[in-house]
Structures are given as structure tokens and as C-alpha cells.
């Protein structure tokens, strides 16, 4: 006798409510409360003070540097991500698994260590230090160092997103295009790119968020020169350490808004991908963890 009464695959109502309440309480305490605190602390001295903290020259220059850094870093890692995904997903070669592990490597390196390696290369005491000094070039404690450190920490984002996606799609469509006489570039532009556009956008969004928000690695190479080598996160730190807490939180709200926009865009892209059109519709887009070095154990693409 199979009745729904004696087969239970869920919990009693009060257990469900209790567990949900605990989970939401934990999220409220650890995620919502800190997020809310950023905005309340920023507005503690009123809107005028908030606005003044944002348009102050040092803040503006930090915002500018953060935007410039992201504008250089994201395209660099985008080109790399597409090239790496094409090589890894569309061809078989020896050492492929090893190569993908190496691509993931920057995720497991502490940001501080990531900054340090560039100091050892380009700092005054570093390998290329004397040569750079002789040619009057500055990388460490200057913008190029910030860009390099940011490229390092955001290195795998777009590649990590594209590789499983392009692997799952195989090479049939591309081969058909080539056989029909399309050039390699045409094939990529008209066949591959439309298939992976949401995954690509997803990777770009996450890469950008991390590039704008990176603190540890940038802090090591920047030298904290006000108005010159301060990115927004570093500017927040300086203000906070100078007991200008409200101004620090004012700049921090911009980064918090960036985080919220990132989460919204990410949800939209996931939704578009799930309900999308064309061949990519039935492909599961890995959630955010893919881009942070987590390969979902359930994903078919990661079983390579």
C-alpha cells in the first residue's frame, strides 16, 4: 500500500519553519546587516557631507584610477579568456588538464602574495628594478603595478567561465561552418560567439567586480600615494585609518552599489541563460562559484 501518508520526503511544518528562520537569520546577521551598515554609516552626517566626500579631489582621482584599471584589465583578460577557451575547448592536446589547473592557479594565491611577486620582479630591489630605474620607468608604486596585480588576481575569471561552456557545446557547429567555407574568424564571430555570449558577459561582470574591488594585491604594489596611486578600496582604507569614517563609508557605498549591480546583472544573465533562446538555452550556466575556482562537482563539463 503506497499512500502519501507513510512516505515522507519532507519535514514537518515546524521543522521547516525553524530551519528557514535559522538560515535567514544567519544571512540577515552576516550579509544584510553589514550591507545596511555601509549605507547608514555613510549618511550619518547627512546627504551634503556624503556628496562632498564623493566629489573631493582625492576621491575623484581614486574613482578615476579604479575605472582606468578596470578598463585595461577586463579587456586583457577577455582576450586571454577567449583564446584560452578556444584552445582548450576546441582541441585535444597533451597537458590540457595541467594547463587548466595552471589557469586556475591565481585563485588559490593570497592577494598579498600576488602583490609581493610583482614587487620582487619590478621593485627597486627586484629582477628588473635596476633596468627600470636606468630607463626612468616606474611600475611598482605606480599605475602599471596596480594594473599588473589586478590582472593577476582576476586572471582566471573569463577563461574559467568560457572553457566549460565551449567544451559542452563541442565543435560540430564550427566544423560545419568551416566546411561550408567560412574563415576561422567568421566562424568564431558568427557561430561560437553567439553561443557563448551570456557566459562571456557573466565572466566580464565578475572580472570587473573583482578588478574594481581588489584590495590586498593592489595595496602591496600601490604605495598609497594620494591622488595618484589610490584606487577606491585603498582610498576607503586611508580615510578609515584617518578616522574619517563617514567619508570612508561614503566612498564604500559606491563599491557596495557596484556589488549589488553585479549581483543583479549576474541573476539576469543566469535567468536569460536558463530561459534563453538558441542552442545555449539548455546549457546549465555554472553559478558564480565557477568563477571563483569552484568547479561544480555535478557539472558534466568538469568531468574532463
Amino acid at each position, binding site marked *: 500500500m503506497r499512500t502519501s501518508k*507513510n*512516505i*515522507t520526503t*519532507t519535514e514537518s511544518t515546524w521543522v521547516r519553519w525553524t530551519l528557514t528562520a*535559522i*538560515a535567514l537569520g*544567519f*544571512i540577515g546577521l552576516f*550579509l544584510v546587516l*553589514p550591507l545596511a*551598515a555601509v549605507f547608514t554609516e555613510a549618511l550619518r552626517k547627512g546627504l551634503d557631507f556624503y556628496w562632498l566626500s564623493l566629489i573631493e579631489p582625492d576621491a575623484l582621482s581614486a574613482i578615476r584610477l579604479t575605472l582606468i584599471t578596470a578598463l585595461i584589465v577586463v579587456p586583457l583578460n577577455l*582576450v*586571454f579568456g577567449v*583564446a*584560452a577557451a*578556444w*584552445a*582548450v575547448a576546441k582541441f*585535444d592536446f*597533451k597537458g590540457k588538464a595541467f*594547463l587548466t589547473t*595552471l589557469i586556475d592557479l591565481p585563485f588559490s*594565491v*593570497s592577494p*598579498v602574495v600576488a602583490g609581493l*611577486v610583482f*614587487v*620582487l*620582479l619590478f*621593485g627597486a*630591489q627586484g629582477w628588473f628594478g635596476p633596468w627600470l630605474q636606468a630607463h626612468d620607468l616606474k611600475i611598482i608604486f605606480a599605475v602599471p603595478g596596480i594594473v*599588473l596585480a589586478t590582472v593577476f588576481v582576476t*586572471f582566471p575569471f573569463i577563461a574559467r567561465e568560457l572553457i566549460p561552456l565551449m567544451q559542452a557545446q563541442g*565543435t560540430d557547429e564550427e*566544423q560545419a561552418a568551416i566546411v561550408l567555407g567560412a574563415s*576561422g574568424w567568421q*566562424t568564431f564571430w558568427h557561430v561560437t560567439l553567439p553561443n557563448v555570449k551570456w557566459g562571456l558577459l557573466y565572466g566580464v561582470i565578475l572580472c570587473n*567586480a573583482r578588478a574594481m*574591488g*581588489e*584590495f*590586498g594585491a593592489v*595595496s602591496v604594489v600601490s604605495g598609497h600615494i594620494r591622488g595618484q596611486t589610490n584606487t577606491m*578600496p585603498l582610498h576607503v*582604507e586611508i580615510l578609515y585609518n584617518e578616522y574619517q569614517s563617514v567619508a570612508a*563609508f561614503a566612498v*564604500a557605498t559606491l563599491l557596495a552599489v*557596484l*556589488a549589488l549591480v553585479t*549581483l*543583479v546583472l549576474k*541573476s539576469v544573465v543566469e535567468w536569460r541563460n536558463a530561459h534563453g533562446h538558441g542552442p545555449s538555452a539548455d546549457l546549465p550556466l555554472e553559478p558564480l*562559484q565557477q568563477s*571563483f*575556482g*569552484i568547479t*561544480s*562537482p*555535478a557539472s558534466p563539463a*568538469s568531468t574532463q
Partner: protein
Amino acid sequence: MPFLPSTSHRAKRVLPGFKLTLGYTLLYLGMIVLLPLTALFVKSFSLTWPEFWTAVASPRVLASYRLTFGASFLAAAVNAVFGFLIAWVLVRYEFFGKKVVDALVDLPFALPTAVAGISLTALLASNGWVGQYLSAYGIDLAFNPKGVVIALIFVSLPFVVRTVQPVLEDAEKELEEAASCLGANRLQTFVHVILPAVAPALLTGFAMAFARAVGEYGSVIFIAGNMPMVSEITPLIIVSKLEQYDYAGATAVAVVMLLISFVLLLLINALQSWQRQKTGAAS
């Protein structure tokens, strides 16, 4: 010779661009990642063994390892419990605002760590929103090792949720039905059916949370108080050695941290292949 196309898959060679894309990939990888990391190891070889040992095993540095690994372990353990619970609630139950909560779980990935750091400090300092009530009971969660644990719980929160969630989604309800038919109550089903199926993912998430927490810098330094021997994390040791122009010392500690993260990376890879075998066997 590595990185050569294997002859068994000639069909795939119809596509162009292999040499170009692989060449660029290797060049970029070499310049941005491998050369800098090599510089770190080469620099560490310039130290004599006693110099290296003094740098990585002085009492202050040893205290920082204890704090970094202890606090990371605690944070990962807390997230293993609550992350599992959050994943469970998100997969199995329906409630208002579930989509928003699901998206919000990724906040620690998207919010810059410096912002998280000052925000948690403002909350937990003795005059903060939460801190003022806690300090009335003599509980102080900022500027001590407890603050480090809290910051690390924040930054590593999404890992367990996001590794356990897909496994719970794919789990077969039939097994639970069978357990129920055979007379198991819900708790027995959970302990003997659900938990073993999720265990590899849970461990993977734990290891990832731990690995992330060990390297974390930005969020911790604001809330830790950074007292030597008490609340100073290892990444901060590297930074302060650098600020004193002790490049050799900073390099030595960085090499230790890098080796530990390599070990953790290998461990995570092993856990993931265990997970794949497990899900492969189940289906």
C-alpha cells in the same frame, strides 16, 4: 612534448587557430602568472637555510600561523553547518523572497573586502550597532581574534552553499522515499541517506572556504586590531615585513603560504574527483 595536438582526434583539427590561441594562452600565462611566481621561489633560494628558518619560524610568525589557520578552520566549520543549512533551505523549501536570498549569498564574492572589513568593524566595535549591546554583557567581538573569525565567516560564506546546492538539487528523491518506505524516520533518512550523498560536496566546500580564509587580507586587517602575537594574521606579517624593506623575510613567509595553498588546491582537486565518482556511481 606537451601541448601538441594528439593525432587520435584529427577530426577536430579542421578548426583553425590552435597554434595562435594556445601560443597566446601560454605566453600570457607565463608572463602574468608563472614568471612572477617563479621570481618568488628564486628569491627565496637566495636565503640561507638558517635565514629562511628565522623568517618563517620566529615566535611572532608562528603565532600568526596559529591565528590564521585556527580562525580559518573555525570560520570554515561555522560555514559548513550554516552553509549546508542555507543550501538545504534554498533547495527544499519555498518561502517569500527566495530568489533574492539566493542572489544575496554571493554578496561576499562581489563586495570588495575592504568594504566588508570596515562595515563589520563599525557593527562590532564597542560603540557599534551590535557591539554596544554585546559589550554590555562583556562580549567584545572587534579588535581581537574573534573579530578575525567573524570577518573570515563573511568572506568564505558562499563556498559551502554553492558546492552543496547543486548536489542537493540533483539528489534523487526516490532514495529518500525508499528509506521512508522501509520505516526510517526523517532524521534517520537525513543521517543515513542524505548526508552521505552530500558529504564529499560538503567537504569540498569546507576546504574551499578554508583555503579562501587562509589567504584573506582586506576584510581582516580592519577588525583584527593587528596586535603582534595576538591578532596578527600571516598575510599581514608579509605586508609589514615588506614595509620594513625586509624583502627576504617577506618572500620566505610568502613561499610558505604559497606552498600551503598548493597543498590545499591539490586536496580540493582530490575531493572533487571523489565527488564526481560518487555522483557518477549514484546515477
